[in-house]
């Protein structure tokens, strides 16, 4: 019998959600079979069995979240095997077993008048009442005693859910915080009889919004954490520039005509992504990260593309974007976006980005300022392509334009450096042949 643990499926994963059980209790399992789908902080991933046997327990139900290392299920040699610490009926049966076990061998070697000790028989009935003991470190148990906390009520964050010191200290702190408001002295209101009457407890604020909590997945939590980190740690500055998109529009039409037999279609966004990669080659300072007081220059150019999905926002990465032919950029972007919408991106698909592009043009947004995707140093926000009155050679003419806005981490990149990058990018987009040269 062997336990299946919540695996670490990405570098940053701390806990996982059982998305769905592919194998049900009693199912035969062969090594390599997909057992369960697990939602990590980055994607929903299939997790395979490492050995043959039968799934005899799903310790963690669908939709539940547990830390890495927690037991999520049990595989055994026989479909009828009972997991040792499953509690309930199984544990009761096991505990009762000694009573029924024949003891002739023991009795034979004892003198007749010396009755065999009845300890097992007496101890057995007491067992089921105790229930399974939750794992805890000795230090956690001692601290819980000292704090007067019931350790079985504390959720463990250690391997297999072991309660460790940090958990007990957190529980003690939480209890303090819960106590504190109650213990705070109330300002005595009106003196006289009214004050003496016990007041019914009043909620401090009435919720006039009629709110309810929406359960969120790991991906949402990671988005929240990372974007907060970006805005708190990276001092953003913003550079805005409108580019003339007439040539780009024309160029795209020509390319798609050429590519028509292959079925590949290049979007404006593909052109922008490729242009960004091409220009980044001349501006290595923008292809960088500020991490822990260190400036990292990235030698590979990996452009991430923000994709809206049902659960939030993901940024799949086109590795070595500068080295990919335009048609390849188009095809891979399409494939990554599809995988993103199906929740099938691998951690690798989302790792290693050095610059991101976010395009809300399809929603008719003129322009916007994007939040940097840490630890990258910059993100390009792309607005809609639209016809605008433009002054050209002293005359007002209608031209297609796109508004670009570059958000830059000032710790890694200074204003002039960012501006020079944006200038070159605009020029490349306005002479789009340079995108592919």
């Amino acid at each position, binding site marked *: 019998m062997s336990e299946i643990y919540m695996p670490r499926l990405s570098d940053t994963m*701390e806990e996982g959600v059982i998305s769905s059980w592919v194998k049900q209790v009693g199912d035969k399992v062969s090594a390599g079979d997909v057992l369960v789908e697990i939602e990590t902080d980055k994607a929903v991933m299939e997790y395979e069995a490492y050995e043959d046997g039968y799934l005899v327990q799903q310790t963690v139900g669908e939709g539940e979240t547990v830390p890495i290392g927690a037991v999520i299920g049990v595989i055994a040699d026989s479909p009828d095997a009972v997991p040792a610490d499953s509690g309930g009926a199984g544990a009761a049966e096991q505990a009762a077993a000694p009573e029924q076990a024949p003891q002739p061998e023991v009795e034979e070697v004892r003198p007749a008048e010396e009755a065999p000790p009845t300890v097992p028989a007496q101890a057995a009935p007491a067992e089921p009442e105790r229930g399974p003991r939750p794992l805890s*470190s*000795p*230090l*956690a*148990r*001692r601290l819980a005693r000292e704090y007067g906390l019931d350790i079985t009520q504390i959720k463990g*964050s*250690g*391997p297999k859910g*072991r309660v*460790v*010191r*940090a*958990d007990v200290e957190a529980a003690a702190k939480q209890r303090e915080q819960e106590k504190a408001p109650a213990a705070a002295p109330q300002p005595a209101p009106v003196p006289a009889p009214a004050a003496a009457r016990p007041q019914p407890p009043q909620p401090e604020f009435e919720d006039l919004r009629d709110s309810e909590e929406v359960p969120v997945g790991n991906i949402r939590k990671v988005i929240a954490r990372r974007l907060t980190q970006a805005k708190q740690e990276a001092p953003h500055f913003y550079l805005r520039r409108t580019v003339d998109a007439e040539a780009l529009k024309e160029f795209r039409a020509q390319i798609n005509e050429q590519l028509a037999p292959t079925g590949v279609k290049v979007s404006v966004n593909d052109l922008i992504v490729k242009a960004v990669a091409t220009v980044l080659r001349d501006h290595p300072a923008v292809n960088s990260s500020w991490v822990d007081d260190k400036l990292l220059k990235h030698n590979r150019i990996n452009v991430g593309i923000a994709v809206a999905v049902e659960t939030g926002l993901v940024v799949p990465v086109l590795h070595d974007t500068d080295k990919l032919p335009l048609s390849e950029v188009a095809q891979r972007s399409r494939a990554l976006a599809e995988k993103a919408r199906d929740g099938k991106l691998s951690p690798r698909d989302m790792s290693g980005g050095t610059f991101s592009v976010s395009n809300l043009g399809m929603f008719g947004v003129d322009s916007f300022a994007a939040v940097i995707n840490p630890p990258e140093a910059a993100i390009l926000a792309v607005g809609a392509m639209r016809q605008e009155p433009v002054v050209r050679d002293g005359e007002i003419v209608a031209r297609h334009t796109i508004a670009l806005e570059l958000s830059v981490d000032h710790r890694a990149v200074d204003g002039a450096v960012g501006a020079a990058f944006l200038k070159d990018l605009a020029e490349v987009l306005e002479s789009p042949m340079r995108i592919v040269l």
Partner: protein
Amino acid sequence: MPVITYRQALRDTLRAEMHRDENVFLMGEEIGVFEGSYKITEGLLKEFGERRVRDTPIAEEGFVGAAVGAAMLGLRPVVEVMTINFSLLALDQIVNHAAKIYGMFGGQNSVPMVIRTPGGGGQQLGATHSQNIELYYAFVPGLKVVAPSTPADAAALLRAAIRDDDPVLFLENLGLYNTKGEVPDDDSVAEIGRAAVTREGTDITLIGYSRMAMVANQVADRLADEGISAEVVDLRSLRPLDRETIVNSVKKTGCAVIAEDDWLTYGIGAEIAASIQEGAFDYLDAPVRRVAMAEVPMPYAKPLETAALPSAESITTVVHETLNAVGRRVG
């Protein structure tokens, strides 16, 4: 304070002790004319003559036995066994004679002798010449076993060993001879049986001796860069074992990783882990982990030898795993 090598610290201390006490003399294979396989006794034959620096035949049982007899009669022999591997040939003399004579004969004779011998792998000397079998001696009551990791400790513990009235196995390490460190220019004598906290910390206790104490300190340096505060306990003495210092450190940090060059199963680390759970059970927040040599006869091929030995990397990994187990997200 002068900065000298571990090798130099041993040589200087031997010379000073021979000047201090005319009963101190050296015996061993190739220690005289050849000045020692690892050059610890360089220059000593010239300085003290053949009476006090004696080349022996290749016969460990014979010359260790002779040293036991000399010690019983009042001399203070310092025997060099070329490597700890060859001490196996003198096992009976060490375990059944040197260790037991004082107790078996009612304290009529003590055996004030020192067996200096290096252990350690990493030099591509093959399976029979790369062992760390100090455990065999640390197991035996009646012996003392010391294992200095720094030049300063090498000097202070060698003085203590020579002046001690019991037989002391003085463990050196091939990987330490060329390491350098400050050595106080005094006559300080270490207390045998006292571990040292060589670095104070609060997050985790690293425990090692001999070469692994040095590596543990290097690991602690790296961990400090990651914001992890590791305490390092250098055992210095394997028998007697300073359980108090170990236990007090673990009481402070709540978790421990033991690094040892010997094999894991039944190794020195097993004894330390047992001592920790006995003395600091209610303070443990994670299982005590051990990092030891792979359970194989030492391979000769360099990549395999390197893979078999515990390293700063393998210790760091286990430290990360231990800290993750107590809720620190590291590594």
